[in-house]
């Protein structure tokens, strides 16, 4: 599909960066001769999420995927770059709060994402009370809507009177989903929504999310470190490493033919039930300190294909000839890596 035919993206990130100043206090810097420390959590990310799709964002801890999530929903403001919703910018201060209401977020920790002192019905009704529309004005209409939402996520309307601690982890995530859906958003950012859940509960929640997506026409940005989950639920995937996207492709091609060395290593590292017993190369090294990233390509210290250029020059995300994947790797660009069969 050429860019001209592609449908306009619902959510777009253009060269977005976020830098945190984690320097020690000024007095300490003076007395202990410490330098300023800047954490480049997100370092030039381009994303285009199409309406109706599930876009997966994977990476290990410290890669910046959670920061990307929070930048999109407005919990952080980007240091650089633009974030657009339906083509309009939303990253500037005070920009179109009405547009922001079209996106909601589901968090990782089911125990910390619900206020323990509030009743479930109040938790779900909060977006409705904050921005009342014609449907939910009035107490009875509000109650009815909360009950309907609870049933939509697989709970009972009577559960609204209870407190969060009376529910299990999976049920709390359902309540979070109900709260996120209350304002009828079009776009949901899901930050590791099933990482804290047991496998069978995870299956329930993923199935629920899938059916809700079909029913309500939702678009998901699904962030996870669990590659198997992303493989199951995402249409397209981007792999992040130390604040940059290293590979971006539709799901099946990415998992079948990973190109970037990091993606290959990551897929190799996942213990999989179907593949147990096959010989695998263990991954070398660890993720470097994000405060002092290696020069050039951040992955070069762990990469078996690194050369001089990799140590100097940061690779840019470029399309691979003859495929729909984008890869940021000199070795791939130069054809030095044999494609996996």
């Amino acid at each position, binding site marked *: 599909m050429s860019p001209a035919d592609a449908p306009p993206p619902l959510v777009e990130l253009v060269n977005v960066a976020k830098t945190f100043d984690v320097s020690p206090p000024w007095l300490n810097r003076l007395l202990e001769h410490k330098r300023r420390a800047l954490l480049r959590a997100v370092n030039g990310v381009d994303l285009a999420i199409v309406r109706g799709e599930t876009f997966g964002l994977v990476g290990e801890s410290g890669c910046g995927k959670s920061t990307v999530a929070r930048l999109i929903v407005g919990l952080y403001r980007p240091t650089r770059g633009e974030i657009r919703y339906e083509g309009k910018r939303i990253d500037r201060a005070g920009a179109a709060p009405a547009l922001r209401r079209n996106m909601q977020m589901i968090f990782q920790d089911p125990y910390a994402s619900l206020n323990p002192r509030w009743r479930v019905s109040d938790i779900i009704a909060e*977006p409705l009370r904050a921005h009342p529309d014609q449907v939910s004005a009035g107490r009875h209409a509000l109650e009815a809507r909360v009950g309907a939402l609870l049933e939509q996520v697989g709970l009972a309307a009577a559960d609204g009177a209870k407190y969060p601690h009376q529910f299990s982890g999976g049920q709390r995530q359902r309540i979070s989903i109900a709260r996120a859906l209350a304002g009828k958003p079009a776009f949901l950012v899901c930050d590791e929504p099933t990482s804290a859940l047991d496998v069978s509960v995870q299956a329930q929640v993923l199935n629920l999310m899938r059916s809700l997506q079909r029913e309500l026409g939702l678009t998901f940005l699904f962030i996870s470190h669990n590659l198997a989950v992303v493989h199951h639920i995402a249409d397209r995937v981007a792999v992040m490493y130390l604040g940059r996207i290293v590979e971006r492709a539709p799901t099946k091609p990415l998992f079948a033919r990973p190109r970037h060395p990091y993606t290959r290593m990551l897929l190799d590292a996942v213990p999989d039930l179907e593949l147990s017993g096959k010989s695998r190369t263990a991954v070398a090294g660890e993720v470097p300190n994000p405060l002092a990233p290696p020069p050039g390509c951040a992955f070069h210290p762990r990469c078996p294909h690194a050369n001089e250029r990799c140590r100097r020059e940061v690779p840019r995300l470029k399309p691979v000839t003859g495929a729909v994947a984008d890869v940021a790797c000199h070795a791939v660009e130069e054809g030095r890596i044999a494609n996996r069969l």
Partner: protein
Amino acid sequence: MASVAAPSRFAAWWNSDLAYSFRHAPVAVVSAVVLAICLGGALFAPWVAPHNPFDLATLNLLDALTPPHGFAGAKPEYLLGTDDQGRDLLSAIMFGTRISLLIGVAAVALAVALGVSLGLVAGYAGGRLDAFIMRAADVQLSFPAILIALLIDGIARAVLPRSAHGDVALVVLILAIGVSNWPQYARTVRGSTLVEKNKEYVQAARVIGISPSAIVFRHLLPNVLGPVLVIATINVATAILIEATLSFLGVGVPPTRPSLGTLIRVGQDFLFSGEWWITIFPGAALVIMVLAINLLGDWLRDALNPKLR
């Protein structure tokens, strides 16, 4: 196992962990009973007290310095004896407790309101505002509470005309004790706020678009109040003691409507001339009440501590 009917709210509360713990802690039960008696006596003093010690018409100077029941020269209607003006000591203690409790509870309420608000604001806003509030708290904590109370009281006396002293003495006292106690609440609440504000339910509220003040008072406040309750309980006891000290020093409530502290001070003059009961009984009442509050507060702190459960 399904129950036939859902338990009533009272039954649910009675069976809750807190009520169960209370029922099984003899110290807590005894303290609560003692405190209830003190509170009852103080609250209903105008109706329950055998005499009205402030109605000058009923005072009989001939009855002055009567010893308490069981000692030579005691009169049956004055159970604990009388002071030098013929005031029944039991009634004076009941009315005095009333004033002490009023000042204690009001001062703590003021300290809680001030301290919790400042703590929430400091914790949530962070940055310079946080630093400023905390430095103010630090400065205040380096002064003893009595000193601050004396300071405020002194300023009030200097500023207001003499005649107004009696009327505003109560308010000034409450202000003085309350203002000197806010830092401990602010610090505790700030610490809890710093922890809670990073939790995901606060982030979820921000994503929904809730205003910061609504987040602070509707989301954070209920979750940081736990330790405040325990501190406040024990603080009532300290506030009463501070007031007693101030009254003892002569800068508290005026002697026409004496609190327990005033009674103790007045009685001190008679201690060595043999009329010991004028100072001992108010003193004992003060100690018993403060002890009961402290013990109850201790139990509450242990009962509410999730780590000990």
